[in-house]
């Protein structure tokens, strides 16, 4: 019996069209737009001005607090302007526009692809380098990694979990990275273990990626303390709390952080970024992005410089299909539809999904027939039908009592609803309002 989490979950069609496609390097675009807020926390402060010449890997925006991080230029060239432009949220955000000239990297970056296994830094030094390199959670949540590595007072980390689940349909960037950079991910895992001062790490991978499980299991034998845990395919297993439950059997208490049960979760992409930052001196300025969709000519995995416009990625897979209805940043379950092809790839962009009109259209929704499927698939044990009504009717105190804040916004409820009700939309609305109420109460 494969391990998995216990409550709820769904199994949408996997549609991993780009599985097994080698990671190709996307040509550097002519200009990039690098937002200064690519992570959860306070936006970074730009430290370059219009007209400045920057190199690839140079810091262009500095961390503005503990829960914040540095941002590096992904290209070399001249700063064109610092201005507002929409990011994947659809709202205009401040960012740095750079006109590309050549590709001149900072001297200290080691550009060879040789594997470097040995390291002699101690924990705090590793944490500091991770912070300097601007590494954030690359599964999509973009929480600054260095913050997770330093547990709050009175708590101790016991196990590091590396998230190679990739439970979202369509996406294959993590899968491909595991196949091509297995050793690097394992070294990155060891670096993270050292930083957290733990002896044990487990890499969770869903059983639809047997080649990655096989490869990493073999390679992990030569790395002390790292094991690979195959998991039953079930969405949303890549959710932090679901992964911890699946691998360790521990349940993060309602409202608590993973560290409350001694666990820290990092994505495989993050582990790879940590490897590059420490062993190669390379800050985070590029990432693997899956570009896919049923009508797309050539679904692919690309290594993309941060700040590249979505339109460049779409060109690279053969252009936008005619019947396109929506372009989604991320996977079909949790991703967001983007409003313009100019929106840039950021540190949290795991994929670009191009959906045909027929699938992108929302179906008309009908009355709730109280079939309770949403209740049975909710991985957090909530009652989505009730939370939706409470959101609609704006009864926020009851929504709070019914644990609306525990919702991880996985969308299993909306996915499974036979009446096509927009459950998650109203729950998100309620969650945002309840969150604001809780914050004002604390003040």
């Amino acid at each position, binding site marked *: 019996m494969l391990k998995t989490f216990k*409550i709820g979950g769904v199994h949408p069609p996997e549609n991993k069209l780009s599985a097994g496609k080698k990671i190709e390097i996307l040509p550097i675009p002519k200009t990039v737009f690098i937002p200064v807020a690519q992570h959860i926390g306070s936006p970074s402060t730009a430290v370059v001005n219009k007209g400045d010449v920057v190199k690839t890997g140079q810091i262009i925006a500095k961390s503005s607090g503990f829960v914040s991080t540095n941002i590096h230029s992904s290209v070399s060239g001249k700063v064109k302007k610092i201005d507002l432009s929409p990011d994947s949220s659809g709202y205009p955000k401040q960012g740095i526009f750079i006109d590309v000239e050549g590709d001149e990297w900072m001297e200290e970056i080691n550009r060879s692809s040789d594997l470097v296994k040995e390291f002699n830094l101690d924990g705090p030094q590793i944490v500091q380098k991770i912070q300097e390199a601007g590494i954030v959670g690359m599964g999509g949540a973009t929480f600054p990694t260095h913050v997770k590595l330093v547990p709050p007072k009175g708590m101790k980390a016991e196990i590091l979990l590396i998230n190679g689940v990739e439970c979202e349909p369509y996406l294959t960037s993590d899968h491909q990275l595991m196949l091509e950079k297995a050793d690097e991910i394992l070294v990155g895992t060891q670096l993270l273990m050292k930083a957290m001062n733990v002896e044990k790490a487990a890499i969770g991978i869903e059983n639809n990626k047997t080649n990655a499980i096989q490869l990493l299991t073999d390679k992990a034998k030569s790395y002390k303390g790292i094991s690979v845990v195959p998991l039953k395919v079930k969405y949303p297993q890549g959710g932090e*709390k679901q992964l911890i*439950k699946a691998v360790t059997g521990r*349940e*993060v*208490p*309602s*409202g*608590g952080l993973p560290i409350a049960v001694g666990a820290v979760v990092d994505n495989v992409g993050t582990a790879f970024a940590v490897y590059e930052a420490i062993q190669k001196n390379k800050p985070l300025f590029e990432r693997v992005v899956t570009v896919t969709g049923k009508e797309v000519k050539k679904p692919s995995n690309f290594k993309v410089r941060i700040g590249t416009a979505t339109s460049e990625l779409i060109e690279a897979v053969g252009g936008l299909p005619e019947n396109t209805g929506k372009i989604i940043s991320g996977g079909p379950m949790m991703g967001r539809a983007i409003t313009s092809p100019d929106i840039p790839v950021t540190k949290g962009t795991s994929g670009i999904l191009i959906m045909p009109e027929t699938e992108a259209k929302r179906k008309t929704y*009908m*009355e*709730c*027939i*109280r*079939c*309770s499927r949403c*209740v*049975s698939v*909710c*991985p*957090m*044990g*909530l*009652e989505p*039908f009730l939370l939706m009504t409470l959101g609609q009717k704006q009864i926020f105190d009851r929504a709070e009592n019914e*644990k609306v804040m*525990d919702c991880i916004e996985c969308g299993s409820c909306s996915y499974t609803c036979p009446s096509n009700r927009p459950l998650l939309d109203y729950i998100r609305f309620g969650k945002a309002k309840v969150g604001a109420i809780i914050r004002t109460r604390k003040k």
Partner: protein
Amino acid sequence: MIPALLWSVFVFGLDALRVTLIAVVACLAFEFVIQKYLMKIKPMITDGSALVTGILLAFNVPANIPWWIIVIGALASIGIGKLSFGGLGSNIFNPALVGRVFLLISFPVQMTSWPVNNRSGIDAVTSATPLGIIKEGISNGTPISEISKSLPSTVEMLFGEIGGSIGEISAILLILGGLYMLFTKVITWHIPVSIIVSVGLVAGAFWLVNPEVYINPVYHLFTGGLMLGAIFMATDMVSSPMNPKGQMIYGVGIGLITISIRLFGAYPEGISFAILIMNAFTPLINTYIKPKRFGGK
């Protein structure tokens, strides 16, 4: 439900089909007319819910019932049971059962004269249901061992060679239909199993204490529409609780009320009343019985 319906047509002849068709057509028509002209909303008859109500209503009446009684039942089901609460999703009670109980109280004679096996070619003979026979026997002071002689065998009950409403007679086909719905995830096991187990346990306990007054629990399980109620009626999504724990409380409640009515009440069969009573508790159960929260105590 299709296997049980086909068997019924086989046993009761085309009468069963006639009743079912009348019920379905009447339910669809009432739904359409009321939604369009009284509620002035877009009729939703294509959602299939009125169709199901019609079939379930037909399953709950004898095959020889006059057509106008079914039409009244359909009006009670759709008009009172469903649309007066706001339509699909908002009804507190199972519409088909509202219709059935309405008819049972209004037309007790027509609702309880059951035709039996019609395959021999002679005119339908009416007879009481097994539970009706037992009830009458006990109230006359006849010991069970005497009554048993006039009862059908277990095999006859399983296959439905007994008197009863259209859809209730063949336990085995109802169970097959239930397994199909379980397999296709239309229902979960919680409600049917908790009803069947609780009825079986209580009936079994009484039987063990005094087999001369209380009948073997097998009779309770395979007759009196218990399977129909447990599998097809109590599991109605709209009027049953929304999480497994609540569903089991609801199921046990139905089981206990059913057996209480059968053993101590005036009616020989009791599951329709039991389901309606527990339907009324559903909102309460939903409010107080919560699913197990992730990370909760």
